[in-house]
């Protein structure tokens, strides 16, 4: 009898505990939405919300990839430059006119983008795993490399999609809608669903979490640690490529500053979403929620008129910290 009494609160406690940790980012999002509604009535208009979510697509999709890398105990600082690099090469290919048919060009360019993204990710993965260099430094190095190459490709200028045919064909990929839902939003959710499937349902996903949780244990269990890690970087590269595919039709152009600091935003989205940087845990939907939060913070700031434009950075920083504190206290109180 005494045993049951002691046991049951423990079980309840741990159930709540798990739940709140996963729920916390969504609570933060809801609070932000309420705050935003007060700041500016336009904020909760469908148009505005669709806008904001649509443009969070790049960071959200990149951050989904980052969730894999981070939960396997890695880190990728090169994703921002990778966006610039992949998008530049893709636009250059479309400009090259190698294929006459615009549709064919577009499809080939998309395949090419994915291939380049995967290759860049592979390079990152191999340098960290086979080369055994701390991911922070390895990807800081490739960050320089990808951005440098982009600068060189663009000769310091911009690389702009020229063919109007391709452009008009490609435009709906960012600006199009399906049943009133902008295409990038659909892309976010498809990417999220795929990623969640891989991470939570497949053997590979299990291995990713094991490697991030304890590398030695994973190795003793016969898991090819280096391969698992490398593949997380390839997944990250593919996610970057997908983000590029959405990015190109939006701005139609890249330059040496494209994607600057996106790596920090992506990592922030991951952490705000509840994934710890030490690895072993990955929360795909939390990450996507984190990306929404970041974009909404910026949006509220822009829509409200109280904040001096000089202080926007400071307030964004403060909000991130407050959001994390709220999360922590939510989890602790439970």
């Amino acid at each position: 009898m005494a045993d049951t009494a002691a046991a049951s609160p423990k079980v309840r406690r741990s159930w709540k505990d798990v739940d709140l940790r996963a729920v916390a980012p969504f609570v933060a999002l809801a609070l932000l939405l309420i705050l935003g509604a007060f700041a500016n009535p336009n904020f909760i208009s469908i148009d505005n919300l669709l806008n904001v979510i649509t443009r969070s697509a790049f960071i959200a999709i990149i951050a989904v990839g980052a969730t894999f890398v981070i939960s396997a105990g890695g880190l990728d600082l090169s994703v921002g430059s990778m966006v610039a690099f992949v998008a530049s090469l893709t636009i250059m290919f479309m400009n090259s006119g190698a294929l006459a048919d615009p549709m064919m060009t577009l499809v080939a360019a998309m395949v090419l983008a994915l291939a380049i993204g995967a290759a860049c990710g592979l390079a990152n993965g191999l340098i960290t795993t086979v080369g055994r260099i701390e991911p922070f430094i390895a990807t800081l190095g490739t960050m320089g490399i990808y951005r440098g190459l982009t600068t060189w490709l663009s000769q310091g200028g911009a690389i702009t999609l020229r063919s109007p045919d391709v452009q008009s064909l490609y435009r709906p990929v960012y600006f199009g809608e399906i049943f009133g839902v902008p295409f990038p939003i659909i892309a976010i959710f498809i990417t999220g669903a795929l990623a969640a499937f891989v991470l939570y349902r497949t053997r590979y996903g299990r291995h990713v979490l094991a490697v991030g949780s304890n590398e030695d244990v994973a190795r003793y269990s016969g898991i090819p640690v280096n391969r698992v890690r490398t593949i997380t970087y390839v997944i990250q590269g593919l996610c970057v490529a997908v983000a590029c595919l959405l990015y190109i039709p939006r701005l139609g152009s890249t330059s040496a500053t494209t994607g600057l600091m996106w790596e920090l935003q992506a990592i922030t989205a991951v952490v705000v979403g509840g994934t710890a940087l030490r690895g072993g845990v990955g929360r795909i939907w939390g990450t996507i929620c984190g990306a929404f939060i970041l974009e909404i913070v910026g949006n509220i700031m822009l829509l409200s008129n109280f904040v001096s434009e000089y202080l926007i950075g400071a307030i964004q920083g403060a909000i991130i910290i407050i959001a994390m504190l709220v999360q922590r206290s939510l989890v602790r109180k439970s």
Partner: protein
Amino acid sequence: MNPDATPASVSSGSPVLQAIGLSKSFGPVEVLKDIALGVNAGEVHAIIGENGAGKSTLMKVLSGHLQPTRGELRIDGEPVHFSGPVDAERRGIVLVHQEILLAPDLTVAQNIYLGRELRKGLVVDDRAMNEGARQAVRDLGGDIAPDVVVGRLSIAQRQLVQIARVLLVPHRVVIFDEPTASLTPVETDALLKVIADIRAKGTGVLYISHRLQEVKEIADKVTVLRDGKLVATRPASELEPVDMARLMVGRDVAKLYPDREAVAARETVLEVDDFSVPGYAQHASFQLKKGEILGFAGLVGAGRTELMEGIVGLRPGRGALRLAGKPVHFSDVHASLKAGIAYISEDRKGKGLLLAKDLRENLTLASLGKFVRGLQVDRARERAALDQAISEFDIRTGRKDLLAGQLSGGNQQKLLLAKMMMLDPGIVIIDEPTRGIDIGTKEQIYKFIAKLAQEGRSTIVVSSEMPELIGICDRIIVMRGGRIVGEVAGEHMTEDEIVVLATGVKTGEAA
């Protein structure tokens, strides 16, 4: 356990697994010297020896975790070379590590099936794995929800999970490296039954334990290692625990537990009143007297560790603490150490020692203040302290510049004891003081605890080994399900009475 999956044993002539002329060196130190050993199918072969004798090292070589410096391994008489533990595992040689090797963020079931997940099409079959895991743990006499994250389990529970994980691999030889060190009698019994089971199915078992009674019970053959050399291999029937102890230590171990004069009633130094550690221990009240040795018994998960951690400020706790009559409250260990209470954790690797730092730094970590001269830490004095600790606690180490992680398990425990004793505490709380300690060293540690009492220090010993509690304690408090359920002293300190209290079941029914 998994008879269909067990590769059939081929011949009965040659041993399944055999080592010939095996040697292993770490740096200049030769840890194993010319070992010859064979394990037959359907046989439990126990390996015993002092801490640092080389048992774990030998097992690691046999299971592919380490490469031998010299010598050869054979399976069914055929020479083999293991490229790594996975390779050995593929050939049916599996090892239950002395240290716990599990991924803390994954669940029990995920850990048990790690690297060989069951699948349904593309998808991992979590339901089947949870079911399998639950069963595997139950077979070992445990009851752990398969979907709990391993990071939340106690050491004992983790040990069960680790054993369950290994037994699920198709195996021909299972190596247990001190599997029972952190188990209580109930789980130990269950494990011994499981071992008897797999032996009956034709599996060879290598079994390491410092509990000689257990060895006597389960083993068919006993091999004794001393200083990396094989001293003897004998049928277990020929050896009594005393003989084993003599072979191990090289001398007679006459009396394990020191004599202690009965202590006259003394003043209370620590009073715990209605103390709760939310979620783990409720309404605990007890008193500790000066010069007393107070035991805490209970099953795994009884909440003893958490109660002690709550008292010294490692966990949030509610209730009153009085130190020599004065109410105190510790918000962290820093405060409790200052008040003269030292807590020695049961988890020496995770919470006791910095495995990647050397012995000297570990020894003085908690008491660095004593070594500060001017602004600097005086390294010469640290070295002197290390020399003293090595001799006082009999820490067996080839070199003094080893990292703590390179010591054998038992010697790590001694180093940890030495480290906390550097603080010269008035009250010592030792959680599982002899976990993984050889019999000779145990004797030393018991003597040491008795000496503490003699010096007027008070000691709380939390232990899952009842004979040890009975042997050294003045009183024993028994916990069950987070509550103190009773106290035994004097002639009531018997295993039977304690088990009755700890399980809430009459003897005989327990199991």
